[in-house]
């Protein structure tokens, strides 16, 4: 199929297979990555995109098949070997050393030029600063990265792949934690890279990015390549069909039919909330049946705001009322006791015990309600299992059984387990922080549907989502800039353009 | 080590052969090791079977070992250094299995079939007080070890004798830390030497209730280039040089080979239906003056 006019591929995969125990992550993957091109990889959660890229990185060794680099059969034996081949990687999971500064993180892999690397620090600093300038990084480069926000950390991880002169750069969901400004900057860099002949592999669940950026697109499904497209030679529906195997999945989010009545009961009211360097003055009201969006750029203080409402942090200033009564949660347990739930930003580190089962993760924190006799501390496992099974069914969680470890689930299904936890408990308000990050189109739709259902059933939802167009599900959107709520946009039908305009008008006036 | 042949029955075949289980104290403690070694070889010379186990100074472990000996139905149990107040489980078990228990370096208490006492506090304490009682600016650093029964007895005897000599106010005590006793004594001595600089011209004396802290003190003296007489117990090869150069003023030599013969005799007497008895181990106070003579009599120490 390879066109004679095309240059020889930098990387060719032929029939790559890989199994993890019983999970067959790749079953015969073949594709070509050409120099000077952006090659998009799309597919549902667990389709095998990251596994494929990890083979190029020397992190995963293939069980079978062949990998050609510059036309020569190659087994990438270690990340170091990959670096020697001129491959650079932005990994899906942020891989940074928390105590190291941005400079040190970006230059960990840089080989020393002096004996034992003595006196090499200046050179490293220069290299890192150059990359920082390219990425237009505006945060201190010598602070430990653990003090940076998740988005800033994402930028550091991107910076690391730009250090050194790679021939091939792999980007596994690089925009998952970025907002639009940074995304644009990243796209510019990708275009610069390809212009100079570098090959780029680009993974994303945001299909418009794929359409905008990629010269070629390969669609993965269940560890196999089901379709390959050239730029302009496909429609959005083709991609969605390839990814999900179904035509009827709507990728765009639908707006609610009508706004929530102004008369609806205010279930949560927040006034002048402030804490630390990120939240300065946050005020809004949340009504019963409402999905309220919090829009803002990365670092606007949305995550921190949700954590304050959830009692994970205590506000320094400000007042809240819940169902009309004063609300000042002393702890997370306290907030949950009053019916507030949070689906946190990073599900692996903040929401799940990866090695534990679906059952255990669903019941986590709620075992008390599974007691056989309420005044005795013993749990009735049968009751807990029944709850978990009901939830698996109701949310359509794809899992072998409720006893499978959540590690074996795809990202979207893992996220649904977190929803299952709250839906199986008695909560009235759900705080959703980036609920669809790293989740494929199919699962994303289901997650929004779950949120809508919850609100329609008399709950209320506050949602933070950096993909602004998804906030179209909201009845109303509150705009946050630099730790302050600056206004709100009434829905339904809030558009991305509305929000961007609100954010940037405010930013300009405030700075 | 031990030469007990696996599988050999402990059945008391006739009157001659016995199986003896020795609960040693801690093989890194020199005196205790010398005693158990001597006891073992003396018993083996009698044709008895001997099993030795080392609890490393841990009383709980010592009881476990003893209980194991009881399970194994040895004829006699010998316990080194520990005393009955630390061996309740052992003593109860042995009593109900009618196995006699002997103490090496212990004392005769309820339920004990025989004991050899190595506390022998008076010889060194008396010798030391005799040497120092007329010193005008006397200061004594005493290295004590409360958990060890012999050490406690030696300290009590010293307190009593100093009191009698009117020297109670001259003593300063340092409780050594075990394990790590050598370095601990070294550091404590070094600090004490700082607190008593040479320029003050005090008459310094060090007393250590067993050899290890004495060796630590000796190391500190060498480091500081000072000369302070040390009085202690447990003669062994390592004290020969310090004795010869006068750093050690007196060391009590316990005749451990003799202890071997003594314990065999105690066991034989008991088997013959004799009453429980306590005997003192034979001792010599070795000083720089009689060192060569002593070594000539005891060639096993000449290295």
């Amino acid at each position, binding site marked *: 199929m390879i066109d004679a006019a095309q240059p020889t591929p930098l990387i060719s995969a032929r029939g790559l297979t890989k199994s993890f125990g019983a999970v067959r992550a790749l079953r015969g993957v073949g594709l070509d990555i050409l120099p000077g091109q952006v090659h998009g990889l799309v597919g549902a959660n667990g389709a095998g995109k990251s596994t494929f890229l990890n083979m190029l990185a020397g992190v995963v060794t293939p069980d*079978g098949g062949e990998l050609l680099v510059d036309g020569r059969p190659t087994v990438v034996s270690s990340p170091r070997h990959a670096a020697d081949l001129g491959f650079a990687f932005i990994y899906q999971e942020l891989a940074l050393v928390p105590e190291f500064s941005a400079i040190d993180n970006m230059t960990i892999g840089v080989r020393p030029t002096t004996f034992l690397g003595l006196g090499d620090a200046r050179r490293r600093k220069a290299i890192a600063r150059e990359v920082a300038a390219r990425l237009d990084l505006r945060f201190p480069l010598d602070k430990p990265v653990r003090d940076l926000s998740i988005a800033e950390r994402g930028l550091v991880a991107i910076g690391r792949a730009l250090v050194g002169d790679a021939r091939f750069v792999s980007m596994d969901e690089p925009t998952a934690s970025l907002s639009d400004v940074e995304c644009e900057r990243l796209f510019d860099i990708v275009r610069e890279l390809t212009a100079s002949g570098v090959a780029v592999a680009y993974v994303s669940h945001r299909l418009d990015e794929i359409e905008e950026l990629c010269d070629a697109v390969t669609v993965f499904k269940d560890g196999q390549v089901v379709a390959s497209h050239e730029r302009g030679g496909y429609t959005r529906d083709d991609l969605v069909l390839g990814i999900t195997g179904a035509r009827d999945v709507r990728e765009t989010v639908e707006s609610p039919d009508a706004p929530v009545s102004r008369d609806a009961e205010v279930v949560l009211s927040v006034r002048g909330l402030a804490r630390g360097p990120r939240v300065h003055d946050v005020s809004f009201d949340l009504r019963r049946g409402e999905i309220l969006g919090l829009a803002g750029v990365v670092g606007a203080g949305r995550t921190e705001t949700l954590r304050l409402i959830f009692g994970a942090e205590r506000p320094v200033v400000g007042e809240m009322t819940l169902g009309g009564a004063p609300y000042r949660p002393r702890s997370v347990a306290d907030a949950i006791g009053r019916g507030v739930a949070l689906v946190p930003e990073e599900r692996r580190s903040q929401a799940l015990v990866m090695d534990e089962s679906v059952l255990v993760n669903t019941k*986590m924190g709620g075992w008390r309600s599974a007691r056989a006799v309420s005044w005795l501390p013993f749990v009735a496992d049968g009751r807990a299992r029944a709850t978990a099974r009901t939830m698996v069914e109701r949310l359509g969680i794809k899992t072998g059984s409720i006893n499978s470890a959540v590690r074996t689930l795809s990202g979207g299904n893992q996220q649904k387990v977190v929803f299952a936890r709250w839906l199986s408990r008695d909560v009235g308000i759900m705080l959703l922080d980036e609920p669809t990050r790293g989740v494929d189109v199919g699962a994303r739709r289901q997650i929004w549907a779950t949120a809508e259902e919850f609100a329609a059933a008399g709950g209320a939802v506050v949602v933070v989502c950096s993909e602004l167009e998804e906030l179209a599900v909201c009845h109303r959107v509150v705009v946050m800039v630099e730790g302050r709520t600056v206004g709100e946009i009434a829905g339904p039908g809030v558009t991305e353009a509305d929000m961007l305009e609100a954010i940037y008008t405010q930013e300009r006036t405030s700075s | 080590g031990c030469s007990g042949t696996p599988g050999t029955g402990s059945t008391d075949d006739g009157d001659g052969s016995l199986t003896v289980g020795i609960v040693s104290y801690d093989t890194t403690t020199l005196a205790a090791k010398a005693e158990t070694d001597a006891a073992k070889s003396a018993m083996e010379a009698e044709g008895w079977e001997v099993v*030795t186990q080392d609890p490393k100074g841990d009383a709980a472990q010592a009881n476990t070992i003893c209980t194991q000996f009881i399970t194994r139905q040895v004829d006699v149990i010998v316990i080194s250094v520990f005393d009955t107040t630390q061996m309740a489980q052992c003593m*109860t078990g042995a009593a109900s299995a009618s196995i006699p228990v002997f103490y090496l370096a212990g004392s005769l208490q309820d339920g004990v079939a025989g004991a050899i006492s190595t506390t022998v506090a008076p010889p060194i304490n008396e010798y030391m007080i005799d040497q120092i009682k007329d010193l005008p600016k006397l200061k004594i650093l005493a290295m004590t070890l409360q958990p060890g029964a012999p050490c406690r007895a030696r300290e009590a005897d010293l307190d009593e004798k100093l009191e009698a000599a009117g020297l109670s106010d001259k003593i300063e005590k340092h409780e050594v830390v075990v394990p790590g006793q050598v370095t601990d004594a070294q550091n404590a001595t070094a600090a004490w030497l700082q607190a008593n600089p040479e320029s003050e011209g005090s008459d310094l004396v060090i007393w250590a209730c067993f050899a290890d802290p004495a060796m630590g003190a000796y190391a500190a003296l060498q480091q500081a280039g000072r000369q302070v007489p040390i009085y202690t117990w447990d003669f062994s090869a390592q004290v020969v040089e310090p004795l010869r150069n006068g750093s050690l003023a007196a060391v009590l030599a316990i005749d451990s080979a003799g202890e071997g013969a003594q314990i065999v005799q105690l066991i034989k007497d008991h088997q013959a239906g004799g009453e429980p008895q306590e005997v003192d181990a034979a001792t010599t106070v070795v000083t720089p003056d009689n060192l060569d003579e002593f070594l000539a009599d005891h060639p096993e120490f000449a290295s």
Partner: protein
Amino acid sequence: MTLTESPQASPELPTRSLAARIGRRTAAILGRYGALIALGVLLVIFSFASPYFLTIPNLLQVLNQSALGAIVAGGLTLVLASGQFDLSIGYMASLAGIIVTILMLQGVPIPVAIVIALLAGVIVGVVNGFLVTVLQVNALVATLGTGSALIGVNYFISGGTPQPVSTQFPEFLQIAIGSWLGIPKPVFYMAGALLILWIVLNKTDFGRNLRATGGNVEAAKLAGVRTGGVTTAAFVIAALFASITGVLLASSIGSGQPTGGDNYTLSSFAAAFLGSTVLREGQFHIVGTLVGVVTVAVGFNGLALVGVPSFVQFLFQGILLIAAVAFSSIGRRLSRE
């Protein structure tokens, strides 16, 4: 739109050879049952090596010998399962032994003395929990610190000397010395203690919360588990069981020893880690800890019966520990590939 066949997508399943599959299965078994197999092998070897080994009295003796260690290690297992460490448990056992005997010698009735000794342990446990959960001191450091401080406390209150109670209080000795139905009393205490701990860890909501905390403390907290309270409770339970052991130890040796229980720290860690390789994958659990304690005790007993010099026991314990854990880790990895 071009829907092209992907180049050379190999359609057939990646079949593994039978040998490879058998190897993988064997590895998986070794990983799961390695420690149990080791225990079995030891039992067989010692049965042949010594005629005294496989006798009821000796096996009871092995259990008796395991008993106190198993009680401390069982408590420690809860702390480990909550994702923390406790290096001070051995010193707590010593503390309880000294307190109970000193109080008895001062005329306090035995039951009251025991309760006070256990309370003292609980207080240390609360301190550990406070340091770790409220002051957020790393558990290793915090308990290294309390452990070190306890050495001092133990010396201080005992004056460094053993507190003998065997003559005056024979009824105190009756607590740990002697048998019921021919079985040494400590074995009953061990069975009771481990049963309680097993139920707490596996069958109560507290146990579930504890394991969630150990699995991912951040996630547990955001799911509504009061992780601080749970962790503190684990420290307190471990302290309580260590103190119980200390009292039993004092009863069985007839005196309170200022350093009597110190060794339990290392031996419990060894047992719990050994046990973490039993059946479950690297998780700490009560049954595993029991297997760990018993395996070490069997080795110790068998070697002593055979008449091996005692240094061999240390070699044995070290090598057993490394081998069991290494086997389990290799087995697990191979079986995953």
